[in-house]
């Protein structure tokens, strides 16, 4: 087993590419903060890529650039050869925060993406009902989000993004706020869905074990301004369950290597964030 970089594949099969991309903000008190700096990596269609890095380093910025919510201020980011804001590619984004619309019932939330695509009522209803079953929400289709637990609302958010079959799934610490057991169940569900549909997934997490268990590739980012520190190809056998992956030979080596990459960055980020607080 080798822990080599996975980013030397032939061009053209990449669904998106970051080329020396950077992002700086001007804060309200006039200071310039660089969230992302000189970041270069590319992801192949159908890959499951995890990004780990210290909290507050700029991982979310990476996802926001791809989603077209913000633009890189240096370098370039290409989504199938186009700027993310101009690309017609369907993107699903599971936010770290609660993004389910509280005034729509579960089914109405799940079919939202299809409503926006003018899919006829009976067709989108059928699809939403299938997704509600698939994500284990049966019986709650007509509930309002306020009546659900946090874990169930995360399932709704996942079903919402899957409804319109996006080519890319961006996930920002999607299971971070959940209890350990719920998280495990949802990780398994995500792996099962990905095995069937092979979307390209970019999965941000601060949980090293989660990254190794789920992804084909784990990118380690530095403290702010975030750069890529290392890029691991995870060659644990598939299909695998999220829990079983932890007992595979090789898991501990990945964990140890990534942890050693990450530890100095966590310390560095704590000093930056401490200075801001």
């Amino acid at each position, binding site marked *: 087993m080798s822990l080599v970089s996975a980013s030397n594949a032939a061009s053209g099969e990449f669904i998106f590419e970051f080329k020396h991309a950077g992002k700086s903000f001007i804060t309200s008190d006039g200071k310039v903060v660089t969230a992302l700096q000189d970041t270069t990596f590319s992801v192949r269609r159908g890959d499951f890529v995890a990004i780990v890095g210290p909290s507050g380093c700029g991982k979310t910025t990476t996802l926001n650039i791809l989603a077209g919510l913000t633009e890189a201020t240096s370098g370039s980011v290409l989504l199938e050869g186009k700027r993310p804001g101009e690309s017609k590619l369907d993107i699903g*984004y599971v*936010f770290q925060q609660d993004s389910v619309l509280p005034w729509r019932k579960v089914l109405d939330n799940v079919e939202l993406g299809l409503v926006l695509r003018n899919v006829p009522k009976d067709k989108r209803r059928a699809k939403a009902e299938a997704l509600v079953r698939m994500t284990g929400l049966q019986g709650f289709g007509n509930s309002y989000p306020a009546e659900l637990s946090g874990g169930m609302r995360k399932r709704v958010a996942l079903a919402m993004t899957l409804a*319109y079959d996006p080519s890319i799934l961006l996930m920002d610490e999607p299971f971070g706020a959940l209890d350990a057991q719920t998280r495990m169940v949802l990780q398994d569900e995500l792996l099962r869905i990905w095995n069937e549909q092979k979307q390209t997934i970019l999965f941000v997490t601060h949980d090293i074990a989660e990254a190794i268990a789920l992804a084909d590739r784990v990118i380690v980012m530095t403290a702010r301004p975030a750069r890529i520190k290392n890029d691991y190809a995870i060659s644990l056998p598939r299909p695998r369950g999220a829990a079983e992956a932890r007992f595979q030979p090789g898991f501990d080596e990945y964990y140890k290597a990534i942890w050693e990459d990450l530890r100095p960055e966590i310390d560095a980020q704590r000093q930056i964030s401490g200075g801001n607080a």
Partner: protein
Amino acid sequence: MTTSTQGNPAGSLPAEEERLLAADRVRQQQKARQRTIDRIVVTASLIGIWEFVVWIGWVHPFFVSRPSLIAIDLWKMFSTGFIFKHLAITMWEAIAGLFIGAALGIATGFIAALSQRVADALIPLIVAFNSMPRVAIAPLFVIWLGFGPSSKIGLVALVVYFAVFFNTFSGMRSVDPVLTNSIRVMGANRIQALWMVSLPHTMAWVFAAMNTSISLALIGAVVGEFIGSTAGIGWIMVQATGTLETTRLFSTMIVLAFVGAGLFAIVNWTEQYVLRWRPRTAN
């Protein structure tokens, strides 16, 4: 407790749990009944004390009238039909003004929140208007729009407008950006995001303003009638003041209280329906 009730259809609970739930239900019913009794007792005692202190001559009825006299006066006003014309006029002024003010407040609050530039330009003006006691403009409205209902409708609309405008504006500004970002990534355009995210979110703020607006609307209508009118509850009160009829003043106040409560019930019911997605809170 041995079973989870989540997703478990009612009726399949074990007997012990059924029994505990039934006991709980009975306790809650008893509490509700006790609360009703307490309220009746407190209200009746206050009315009783009022009647009593006038009856034994501690206070002269010229100043505070008497519950029994007020009841008779209320009966007289309703049985002769005298009150209906005035009641209809005051309610028309309050409701029409409420709707016009709310509609304008929602529309302009929405637009002002869409554009930072419009908002920045308008805000100082609105703050200045809002810090002015708005009923002070009532005499101007009477000069502009005459002694009929339109001057009162104008005053009510103005008073309500500011409350609704401010809340609509604040509501629009407090939309969770995650929700907007989420729906934009799903493919919604700006108009769709406004319609599906900003508007439903802002409705909660609009209703909060509507609840305070009801009393503002009644104040506007009655004060407008005080200033200059030919009919309405406020007009009756002005007449009663002229002839020093304390009883009539009290009975019209009671009528106004019921009008306010009725309007409040209508708005509250609409709110319950429009905001049915909100988690139920204990009342």
